[in-house]
């Protein structure tokens, strides 16, 4: 009897859904922040994060587990943001109340939070396609080739979008600094 007690059935392999949920849980902070960087209003981030999860679950078999997951997730978040932006253009916004960190809060003493709000505000001035490239490359430090793969665009397009987006970011930051100085 004793030897039978030593035998254990192997632990069941995690299911596809478990793996996907696990990845979603690990990268939840990143997904939320990426959606905000892509211009999703704070009031819609919850719903879009769920859409990212559902899309991730749908395409889980296509994800190559040997590669970093963040560029893959960013690609999904970008497409969902773009679809949402198209939808929003056709709809009248319904009672959207921003409760997030748009614009420096006079009561907020933390410099970092102000800087973050400043960057988000400046990013708003860059069209989504170029903003996605800039965020991936200059904030997430994703190499150009991976940016191209994640967004399904040629490498040259990444370079040209990045060049233009950097210029737009600089002018937006200059403008917001100037507005802040005048205020």
């Amino acid at each position, binding site marked *: 009897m004793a030897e039978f007690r030593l035998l254990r059935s192997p632990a069941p392999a995690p299911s596809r859904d478990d793996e996907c949920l696990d990845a979603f*849980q690990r990268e*939840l902070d990143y997904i939320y922040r990426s959606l905000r960087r892509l211009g999703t209003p704070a009031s819609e981030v919850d719903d879009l994060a769920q859409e990212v999860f559902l899309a991730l679950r749908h*395409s889980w078999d296509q994800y190559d587990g040997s590669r970093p997951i963040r560029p893959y997730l960013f690609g999904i978040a970008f497409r969902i943001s773009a679809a949402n932006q198209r939808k929003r253009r056709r709809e009248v916004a319904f009672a959207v109340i921003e409760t997030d960190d748009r614009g420096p809060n006079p009561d907020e003493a933390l410099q970092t939070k102000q800087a973050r709000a400043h960057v988000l505000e*400046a990013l708003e001035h860059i069209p989504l396609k170029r903003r996605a490239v800039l965020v991936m490359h200059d904030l997430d430090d994703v190499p150009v080739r991976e940016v191209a793969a994640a967004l399904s665009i040629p490498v*040259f397009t990444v370079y040209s979008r990045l*060049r233009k987006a950097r210029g737009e970011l600089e002018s937006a930051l200059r403008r917001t600094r100037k507005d802040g100085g005048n205020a």
Partner: protein
Amino acid sequence: MIEELPPLSPQARALLDRERPIPSLPASIRSRALARAHAAAATGSAAIPVPPSRPVAASWIPWAAAAALVIAMGTAAAGIYHHRGSAARDTAPSLPPRPEVAPVAALAPALPGDDLVPPFESIAGEGPKRSRIAVPREELRLLKQARAAVARDDFGGALGPIAEHTRRFRDGRLVEEREALRVKALAGLGRGSEASRAATSFEARFPKSVLLPTVRRISSTAP
């Protein structure tokens, strides 16, 4: 040949450096997001494909062309019908009765034991703005699934079709019913604070809804 990228200014780089670290989400948002993801995974049918990244103009052209075609055909058909009708009035004392369109109720019969949502025939005939045949079948199908799940107390199972309906018909014909079902499903799952939030949002959006008293009751009795 790869073009040279302009370097970012030190000020811009410093700001990006501040934004680079990913901040942690508050525990309440994190737990809500994970609960929703688990509920969606549990229903098993809510996975959606990644939307294609296509240009906006390209998505408008076929729809605009189709709409123009439908309008042109409708105008032509109405002209023919009017012409025939006036010819018939000259020769006959009255027109034959026009065939009735299929009522929405035929597509979505009321489910037994569901006290929250009125059957679709009453919804469809409720006001002058709602056409009896304008509710897409797919929209009805999803709401039927959600209603059926709520009726058999499978509240987790109702969230899948509700989420899919939200995604596909964000401002559809049955959005009021969907949001009422959401409150009931969340309350049934014991997610009282979420149910209460959904009820508040429902009240703000549909202040004159006939479902409002029921929604309030469910939300106030939720744990």
